[in-house]
Structure formats: structure tokens, C-alpha cells
């Protein structure tokens, strides 16, 4: 491949991810956090910043933030204080956001990513707790902007990475891994389209080998992981084009346009925001002792990296299989349930990655809505392992079970004539019938053309309607032919 001017440069990327936490109530008040309610129905005097109201911290938010911190190998901060970040905006009734400034609950973590088989650690600078703002609508009314405060006060954690990311592919992997963790931990649904996970990218470029940083541009408004990748690709080229043509990269905030993958300046950072942070006296400090961290840790579900380790070392699955099985938490849990019943780990993995997943994909359903339980799959695997049903018969059995999940696997196999016959007398009569049909082929076999056995096997299968147990049939045929 020919080198272009872009190959001289590398990107330096840091990502800020806001994750909306799956609590029942808001972070500083008891209003519901349910998604999709009609406007301004989930608000309280605290959300509205009525005089005399006091925020009170939702205890669950702390546990969720600790979980994420532990999953990202962070240090957990003992004394947590809150701060006011001031700015005027219609969707922020107090005129300030309650956030954490100097004492983020988690610091100094890292996450492992993988690009083209190469593993790499990306540093996590900090995770802090804060509240979301409301939503503005500029389209519904020609003369006014409309404000819905249902989202105001929703609990968020902001996860800030170190500027360790060097390409859009790394950013893609980082976000995919991070979202997977958030979903495993049940703290965020990770839905970027609905905005429950949001990502801002800080991007600069520099000549490869350089250790200094270029001017940083912040890009916003990406509503999918793929669009974050596109935004980085576009911004990388734009900045290099500027530099190569002797122009300057301005420190800016830019918005991503999903239609063509370009970015456009939102506002210049020269009028730097002055948030006038100061300590929030309305929320007393929260002390997180090691005991609490330990207890949160003991309640954490297994993380994907731990499961991959278990699947590859204990169960001897391939790294690829382990990756597929742990990609989604519910699939992993299904598999864990299944292997608590059968020791045939590889068969269990093949069933989930093959028949089950393709059925789910074809019907666009999630595994948690799948009609067959791990028990059903176990009963199929058991019939195959005992030689009662052939592997092709098992696929038919699987399809039939989806239609009739209340019938037992063995009854269903019998109904469908899938039970393999290993009754020697029956097999023998089928084998004899097959040999009688091709007397000249029998002579050829006896003359040394051993490969012709397959023809007789096929004939036995035909006569038996697929019920003949292949292993026993093979043996009987050879006995008859060699006698």
C-alpha cells in the first residue's frame, strides 16, 4: 500500500463518556427515572430548584459508581465531596450542575482493549458522579424553545479516559468494551441512540514519534459507537489537511454531522467557559470505607474478562468461542446455566453460537425472550451424546422444540422418528437389504475398493429413514462384507 501524507501522523484521543445509571429514582431527589414518560411529569420541587429545597444523595448511585470503578481497576476515593458547576441554561433550573470536581469517586484505572489481535491498556483518569440536565426542544414551537425537565437530575457517571487512544479503531474497541462492562454490571443500558450513553471525543494529531500534543478539538453529537469512529476519522483528516496546508488547528468544540461524517464548529473556546466551581455545601461528604468497597465487590457479577479466562483455561474453549459467548451478558449467563448441567462444554458452546444465535438473529429477539431454556438445550445435547439422536436429527429436534417447548426432548424425538436405531437385528436387516441392492458393488468392495462403504451407509440411511445409528451401522456393514 502506498503511503500517504496521513500516514506521517497519529491521532491522540481521549474520550469522555457519560453513562446514565439504571437507578429507580434521580440522583438528588426521588423523582422517577423511567424513560419515555410524558414531558414534565417526573419532576419535584428539588428538580425545579424551588427556594428552600435541599438535594439528598441517592445511595445506589455510589454503589453503581464503585462497581464501575472496580471493573475499570480504579482506586476508590474515600472522602467524596460535591461541587457546583455554574452555567445558565434553560434546562438547568438551579443555574448550576451538582457534580464532583476535586474528589471524583474513582481514579487511576485502566481498561484492556484489542485491535486486530493486539491488546492494549487505555488509562482511565477519573469517574465522577453528577446530574443530567433537562431536554430542550427547538422544533415543536415556532416562537419558543420548549423545556422538559424529566431528565434533569438523572444520575450520571462521567468516565474520562487518558489521551492514550491512538486511532479510531482503538476508540471503537474502547467504547465497545466499556459498554459491555456497563451492561454486565447492570448500571447502564448503554443505548447511545436514546442517549443513555453519550460520548465526547477530544482529538488532536501529531507527527508519529513526537511526544508533544497538538491543539485539541472536542467533537460531540455522536449517537453510536460507529459514528464516534467516523467522527474521529473525519477529524483526523481535517486537522492534518489544515497543518499540511500551513494553517492552524483552532481549539474548538465541533459537532458531528452523521449525514456526511463531517464536523462543524459549535463555538470557539477562546471565550473559555468560566464554570466558577465551588464546593456544594448542601450535600455533606460521603465517606466510602474499604468495607463498603469490599461488600460491593462481593456482589458483583462475573466480568467478561474473568469469564473469557474461565472458558479458555477451565473449559478449554478457543479464545474466539470465549469471545463470542461473553460478548453479551445474557448469552454468557445462558451458557453458564447450560454448562452447570452438561460437561460437554464444546457442544454447549456450539449450540449457542450456532443454532440458538442464528434463530435469535433471524427472529430479531434477545436470548432472555427465547422460548427454549438451557434445560431444553441440555436435553438435546444429552440425546446426541447418548447416541439416541444424530447431530442432523438434533437440528430438527431443536426446531420442533421451539414449536412445542412443553413436550420432552425424548418424546419429541420419538414423534419425529429421530431416534436412532442401534438394535443390532434391525440394523442387520437394513444392512443386508442395502447389500442385496448392489451385488456387483459388494464384489468391488471385496476386490479392494474399500471406499465403496459410504454407498452402503447411504443406502442404509435411506432405507431406515435416517434412524440407523451410523457408528453401529458402519460396524455391521463391515462385518457382513468381510464375512
Amino acid at each position, binding site marked *: 500500500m502506498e503511503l500517504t501524507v496521513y500516514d506521517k501522523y497519529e491521532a491522540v484521543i481521549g474520550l469522555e463518556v457519560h453513562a446514565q445509571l439504571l437507578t429507580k429514582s434521580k440522583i438528588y431527589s426521588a423523582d422517577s427515572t423511567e424513560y419515555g414518560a410524558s*414531558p414534565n411529569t417526573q419532576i419535584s420541587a428539588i428538580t425545579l430548584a424551588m427556594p428552600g429545597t435541599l438535594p439528598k444523595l441517592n445511595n445506589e448511585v455510589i454503589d453503581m459508581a464503585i462497581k464501575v470503578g472496580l471493573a475499570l481497576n480504579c482506586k476508590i476515593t474515600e472522602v467524596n465531596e460535591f461541587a457546583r458547576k455554574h452555567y445558565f441554561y*434553560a434546562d438547568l433550573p438551579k443555574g448550576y450542575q451538582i457534580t464532583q470536581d476535586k474528589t471524583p469517586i474513582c481514579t487511576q484505572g485502566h481498561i484492556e482493549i484489542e485491535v486486530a489481535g493486539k491488546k492494549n491498556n487505555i488509562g482511565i483518569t477519573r469517574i465522577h458522579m453528577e446530574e443530567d440536565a433537562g431536554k430542550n426542544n427547538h422544533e415543536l414551537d415556532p416562537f*419558543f424553545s420548549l423545556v422538559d425537565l424529566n431528565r434533569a437530575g438523572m444520575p450520571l457517571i462521567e468516565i474520562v479516559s487518558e489521551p492514550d487512544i491512538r486511532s479510531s479503531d482503538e476508540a471503537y474497541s474502547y467504547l465497545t468494551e466499556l459498554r459491555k462492562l456497563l451492561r454486565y454490571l447492570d448500571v447502564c443500558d448503554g443505548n447511545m441512540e436514546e442517549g443513555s450513553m453519550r460520548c465526547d471525543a477530544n482529538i488532536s494529531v501529531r507527527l508519529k514519534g513526537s511526544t508533544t500534543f497538538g491543539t485539541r478539538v472536542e467533537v460531540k453529537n455522536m449517537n453510536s459507537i460507529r459514528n464516534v469512529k467516523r467522527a474521529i476519522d473525519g477529524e483526523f483528516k481535517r486537522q492534518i489537511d489544515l497543518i499540511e496546508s500551513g494553517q492552524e488547528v483552532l481549539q474548538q468544540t465541533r459537532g458531528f454531522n452523521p449525514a456526511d461524517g463531517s464536523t462543524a464548529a459549535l463555538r470557539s473556546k477562546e471565550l473559555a467557559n468560566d464554570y466558577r466551581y465551588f464546593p456544594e455545601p448542601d450535600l455533606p461528604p*460521603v465517606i466510602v470505607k474499604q468495607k463498603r468497597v469490599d461488600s460491593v465487590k462481593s456482589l458483583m457479577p462475573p466480568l467478561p474478562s474473568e469469564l473469557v479466562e474461565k472458558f479458555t483455561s477451565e473449559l478449554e474453549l478457543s479464545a474466539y468461542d470465549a469471545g463470542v459467548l461473553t460478548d453479551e451478558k445474557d448469552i454468557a449467563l445462558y451458557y453458564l446455566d447450560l454448562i452447570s448441567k452438561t460437561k460437554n462444554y464444546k457442544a454447549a458452546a456450539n449450540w449457542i453460537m450456532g443454532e440458538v444465535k442464528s434463530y435469535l438473529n433471524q427472529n430479531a429477539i434477545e436470548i432472555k425472550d427465547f422460548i427454549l431454556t438451557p434445560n431444553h438445550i441440555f436435553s438435546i445435547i444429552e440425546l446426541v451424546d447418548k447416541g439416541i439422536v444424530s447431530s442432523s436429527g438434533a437440528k430438527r429436534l431443536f426446531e420442533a422444540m421451539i414449536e412445542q417447548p412443553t413436550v420432552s426432548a425424548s418424546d419429541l424425538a420419538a414423534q419425529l422418528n429421530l431416534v436412532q436405531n442401534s438394535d443390532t437385528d434391525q440394523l442387520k436387516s437394513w444392512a443386508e437389504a442395502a447389500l442385496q441392492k448392489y451385488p456387483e458393488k459388494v464384489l468391488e468392495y471385496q476386490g479392494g475398493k474399500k471406499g465403496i462403504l459410504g454407498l452402503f451407509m447411504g443406502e442404509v440411511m435411506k432405507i431406515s429413514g435416517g434412524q440407523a445409528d451410523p457408528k453401529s451401522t458402519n460396524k455391521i456393514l463391515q462385518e457382513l462384507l468381510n464375512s
Partner: protein
Amino acid sequence: MVVDDKLISHLAELAKLEFSDTERVEIKKDLEKIFSFMEQLNAVNTDNVAPLIYVNDDVDVVREDIVDHPITKEEALSNAPIHDSDYIKVPKFVTHRS
């Protein structure tokens, strides 16, 4: 602290307010008064005094994650100067923020 035109413009922008030239003269006077009043505090030596953020020593004042809706939408909207049956209405704005 020097109160100059630049500072007033900066504060006005942060507060999303606009002032006429005569108002700016008044504001300059007021701010200077306020600053000189506050600067009297500099006379006190606070070298060995920790900043006081909280009025008492309480820690861990938290609530359980339980939903409660003490007010209705109608009550919530009733304080907004302009609203319809669903939304609070504000002057149209389209600028972005961080």
C-alpha cells in the same frame, strides 16, 4: 480587585444579561463597593484556618433509591411564566454548550 469594562462584560455574558452604558456605570460603582467591603476580610489572618464548607459535621446523609412524586405536572408548570399543558416555554435559543 479592579472592576473594569472587561470584567463587567465577562460577568454579563456568564449571567446572560445585557446592560446599557448608564447601567454599566452603576454596576461598576456597585461592584467596587462590594469588592472593597469583602476586601476588609483580608485583614484577618486565616493562614491556619481550614475553609468552612459545611455548617455541621454530618457525613453520609443519603436516601434509599425509592421513587416518590410529591407534585403534579400542573403544579410543576404553574410557576413557569410561560408554559403550555406539557412544556415550560422559554425564548428561542439554539446555541450549544459543553
